[in-house]
């Protein structure tokens, strides 16, 4: 029977051509060391414009979208899939637009267009969601959070909301997993009239929270200022509008107690649908508690056992610039991708709980993928570094907008004798290594790629080759 369907499908020559062209172009790009993931998908759609529909048939798709935490959350979900022995594939973070998603599906399909995986864990850009859900009817859509992000790319935050709503509305039966603590996220439920499984944190996480501009101070429904029982970070927390009554709903998967937060992770009490456990979140910072809860929510939605969920959170190791720790000549070097003020402020919150002396490297680029407007650095509370200046041995600054970054630190009253600019990546890391103490690097997106390539070549870090 299977062979039969394969044959019928194979007769759809355009599908075969489409998948083949995608596979060939991908191989060619790899041979010539051009890691493009979008072009093959584009070529595939040229031969068959709804190829994504064919290659995703019978695959249960998890779509993960939202401003921050997409990649990490996907990797935690994958960890749970591995632990429970599910047959799945996933896309890489660089391939989260429509063409990248098409490429990932084609590569994991046979020439007949049949995909033999049961599940797909797909990270999807907010603006691309509605394009992807035109072809895929996912099992689960997860919205991690919504923050102000690269206005030059996404426009206003309400625009982002509408784009995600449009994507959700394309879907018939998807289970929606959503952040209960984000007033923008839960607003999606009323504009899409969908039911959802909610995740959230029931109490504050940090005693000493960074002051940052809030993306949602006023009620999205009636424009009255929210009151908060507690804030976990940015605009996330126990919000309530005293005017129209819009408020945080009780989550289904939630952290009821934050027992401990340290530089390598957090200990939390988690409730998964009324079942309470103590567990370790194996990544530091409030944002990673959220990423873990989001992943737990998705895993619960598709029926993964609690023990595997807890193991997935507790054993997860980060990669690809998300709190990724590597060792260079015996010195620990942690790479933490930064994209927007909400994310960077979280890194600063994290640096507060690091209890050793360290070197900080900030790399600011302004390519399209980083955001061409770098003014967002003025919404990052670098002034807070003054409170931990004893822990920071030196700050090195790199990237194409290094001088803008240095100027930001100058206007934050940072002691500029402790700040050096070095726009050559190799020299930058070399100088930092000379101090012989742990290094934290916060690069923007393209800066991270350049940095990884440099580290891979110079220090032969094989695992860095994708």
């Amino acid at each position, binding site marked *: 029977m299977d062979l039969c369907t394969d044959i019928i499908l194979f007769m759809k020559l355009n599908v075969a051509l489409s998948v083949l062209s995608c596979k060939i172009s991908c191989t060619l790009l790899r041979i010539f060391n051009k890691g493009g993931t979008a072009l093959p998908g584009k070529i595939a759609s040229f031969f068959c414009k709804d190829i994504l529909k064919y290659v995703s048939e019978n695959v249960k798709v998890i779509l993960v979208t939202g401003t921050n935490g997409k990649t990490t959350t996907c990797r935690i979900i994958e960890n749970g899939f591995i632990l429970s022995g599910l047959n799945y594939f996933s896309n890489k973070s660089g391939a989260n637009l429509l063409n990248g998603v098409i490429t990932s599906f084609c590569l994991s399909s046979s020439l007949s267009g049949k995909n033999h995986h049961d599940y797909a864990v797909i990270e999807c850009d907010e603006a691309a969601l509605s394009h992807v859900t035109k072809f895929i009817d996912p099992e689960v859509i997860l919205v991690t959070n919504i923050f102000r992000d690269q206005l030059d790319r996404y426009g*206003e935050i309400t625009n982002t909301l509408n784009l995600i709503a449009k994507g959700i509305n394309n879907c018939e039966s998807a289970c929606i997993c959503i952040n209960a603590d984000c007033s923008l996220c839960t607003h999606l439920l009323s504009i899409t009239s969908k039911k959802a499984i909610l995740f959230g944190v029931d109490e504050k996480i940090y005693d000493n929270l960074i002051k940052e*501009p809030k993306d949602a101070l006023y009620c999205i429904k009636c424009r009255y200022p929210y009151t908060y029982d507690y804030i976990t970070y940015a605009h996330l927390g126990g919000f309530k509008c005293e005017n129209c009554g819009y408020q945080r709903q009780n989550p289904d998967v939630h952290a009821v107690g934050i027992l401990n937060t340290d530089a390598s992770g957090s200990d939390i009490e988690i409730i998964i649908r009324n079942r309470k456990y103590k567990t370790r979140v194996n990544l530091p910072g409030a944002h990673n508690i959220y990423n873990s809860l989001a992943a737990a929510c998705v895993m619960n939605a598709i029926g993964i056992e609690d023990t595997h969920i807890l193991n997935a959170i507790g054993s997860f190791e980060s990669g690809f610039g998300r709190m990724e720790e590597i060792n260079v000549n015996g010195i620990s070097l942690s790479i933490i991708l930064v994209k927007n003020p909400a994310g960077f402020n979280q890194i600063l919150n994290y640096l507060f709980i690091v209890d050793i002396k360290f070197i900080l490297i900030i790399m600011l680029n302004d390519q399209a993928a980083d955001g061409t407007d770098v003014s967002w650095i*003025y919404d990052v509370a670098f002034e807070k570094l003054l409170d931990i200046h004893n822990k920071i041995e030196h700050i090195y600054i790199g990237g194409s907008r290094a001088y803008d970054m240095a100027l930001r630190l*100058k206007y934050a009253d940072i002691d500029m004798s402790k700040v050096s600019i070095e726009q050559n990546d190799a020299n930058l890391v070399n100088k930092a290594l000379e101090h012989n103490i742990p290094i934290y690097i916060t690069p923007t997106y393209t800066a991270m790629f350049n940095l990884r390539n440099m580290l891979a070549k110079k220090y032969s870090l094989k695992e860095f080759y994708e």
Partner: protein
Amino acid sequence: MKKQIRICHLYPDILNLYGDIGNVITLQKRLTNRGIDCTIDNISVKDTLYVENYDIFFIGGGQDFEQEILLEDLLVVKKTLIKKAIDENKTFLAICGGYQLLGNYYKTWDGTVLEFVGALNVNTIGDKKRMIGDYIFTCEDEKGCFDVISFENHSGKTFLSSDVLPLGKVITGYGNNGQDKTEGARYKNVFASYGHGPLLPKNPRLADLIIKTSLKEKYGTIDLVDLNDELEIKANNIMLERVKFHTKK
């Protein structure tokens, strides 16, 4: 007696598009680094505004949703106060959305007219196409012309009436409307610009021009000592070179 400049940051919780706070920080540091006291008060919706308590007013840009939140407070309560402050030669810096709000009206691309403060005789017409990117314009102080580099991101096209001067002349980019090469507005002691986000950190001459304007109004004399602007100038020059070179290609 020690000099003091009091800054009023209007609607800082709402009009805070990327980095607007950078301008306020820059004014403050460049004052305190010269031994001039500087205070900053945040005045938002429902806060009472006493214009006589301030020397410089800053109003930034916001997203449409956010601007709607403050419109009632601005037009019903603070409009006359802001007009009074401008008439009394108080120094203003208005950026992007804040600049548009000080004008007469904003006509959306589908024809709806939103009446604004009307303190500046300028009108803004919404367009579907956004004007986004690094841009350069020239400005003038007592020493002559200088280049300002910033980033613009707006869909409104602003047109100046004859009693309002432009802040500068566009060298590359769009400026007020992408048509007449004007950028921003100068009226009495009002400075307005589309250079959204942190316009001032990288353009110290413009920052000092605003500071001098407020000091002259308050104390009648200006004696600003030079600051070490090596980093500011370097950051400015690198982007000037890049944007000019890029545009030539």
